[in-house]
């Protein structure tokens, strides 16, 4: 294992072609498409996990190692596990959906999918037009220097410049997790 890590780090990574980052990006988009299209919820959640792993690898490839590992820990380790547990705790039943008084006014599944797809395509076209054809798109972008975000510098920045937001986030996370536990708790008749 140690030898393998040494061999991997000795490879000439800085001479790797620039398009290499497209591989995790492609994997991420394929997995995201599968997560949207698949019918089985468990398959959707597993494809989402794969997509998040590829996104973390992409972050690492772009030089933001710390964010990449945070992404892997938080999204892959925690959020998708939460989603899987929620899927297992909420088995599908057709009882409630069938006595919906608004059912007659609901659009059929095909129209719903067409409308949603149309809106998503419209947003995508707008975003791509803004990215590639806006006047700012022709401005020179500073060349990507070998930007790195060492964990030490991130920690110093967090504690020196963004201490208040950091503490706010800590309070928010605590409140959100206590609130989530209270919300999901079974109500006992007193």
């Amino acid at each position, binding site marked *: 294992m140690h030898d393998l890590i040494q061999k991997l780090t000795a490879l000439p990574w800085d001479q790797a072609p620039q398009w290499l980052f497209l591989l995790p*990006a492609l994997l*991420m*988009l394929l997995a*995201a*498409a599968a997560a*949207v299209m698949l019918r089985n919820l468990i398959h*959707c*959640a597993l494809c*989402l996990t794969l*997509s998040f792993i590829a996104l973390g690898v*992409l*972050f690492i490839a*772009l*030089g*933001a190692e710390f*964010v990449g590992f*945070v*992404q892997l820990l938080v*999204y892959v380790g925690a*959020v998708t596990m*939460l*989603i899987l*547990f*929620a899927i297992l*705790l*909420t088995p*599908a*039943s057709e*009882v*409630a*959906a069938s006595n*919906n008084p*608004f059912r007659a006014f*609901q659009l059929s599944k095909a129209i*719903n999918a067409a409308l*949603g*797809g149309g*809106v998503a395509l419209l*947003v*995508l076209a707008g975003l*791509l037009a803004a*990215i*590639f054809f806006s006047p700012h798109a022709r401005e020179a972008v500073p060349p*990507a*220097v070998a*930007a790195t*975000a060492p964990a030490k510098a*991130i920690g110093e*920045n*967090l504690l020196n410049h963004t201490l208040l937001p950091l503490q706010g*986030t800590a309070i*928010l*996370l605590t409140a*959100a*997790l206590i*609130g*989530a536990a209270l*919300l*999901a708790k*079974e109500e006992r008749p007193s």
Partner: protein
Amino acid sequence: MMLQVLLAISAVLFCFGLLAALTRSNAIMVLIGIEMMLGAGNLNFIAFWKFSAHPEALTGVLFAIFSIALAAAEAAVGLAIIIQVHRRLRSVDVNAAHQLKG
């Protein structure tokens, strides 16, 4: 050009998330779509940090870290609400939760 390719990738991911949030009627799939859109936002932060004039200021990296923390809080509360809705309505279909409709 690299920056634009990255932004385009992030735009496609965002639209997959939007598609999931708009077309699926299962509340968990809506939440999955929202998570995808947040991931696309994080990718934008990292891309703009990588191609900024002062990457040593780490602004985009710090933004991405805070946004990941907020996304985790959002997912926890959202899934707790979904579990409570399922307990009351025996369904996670967003069309079944219509008591507050006017």
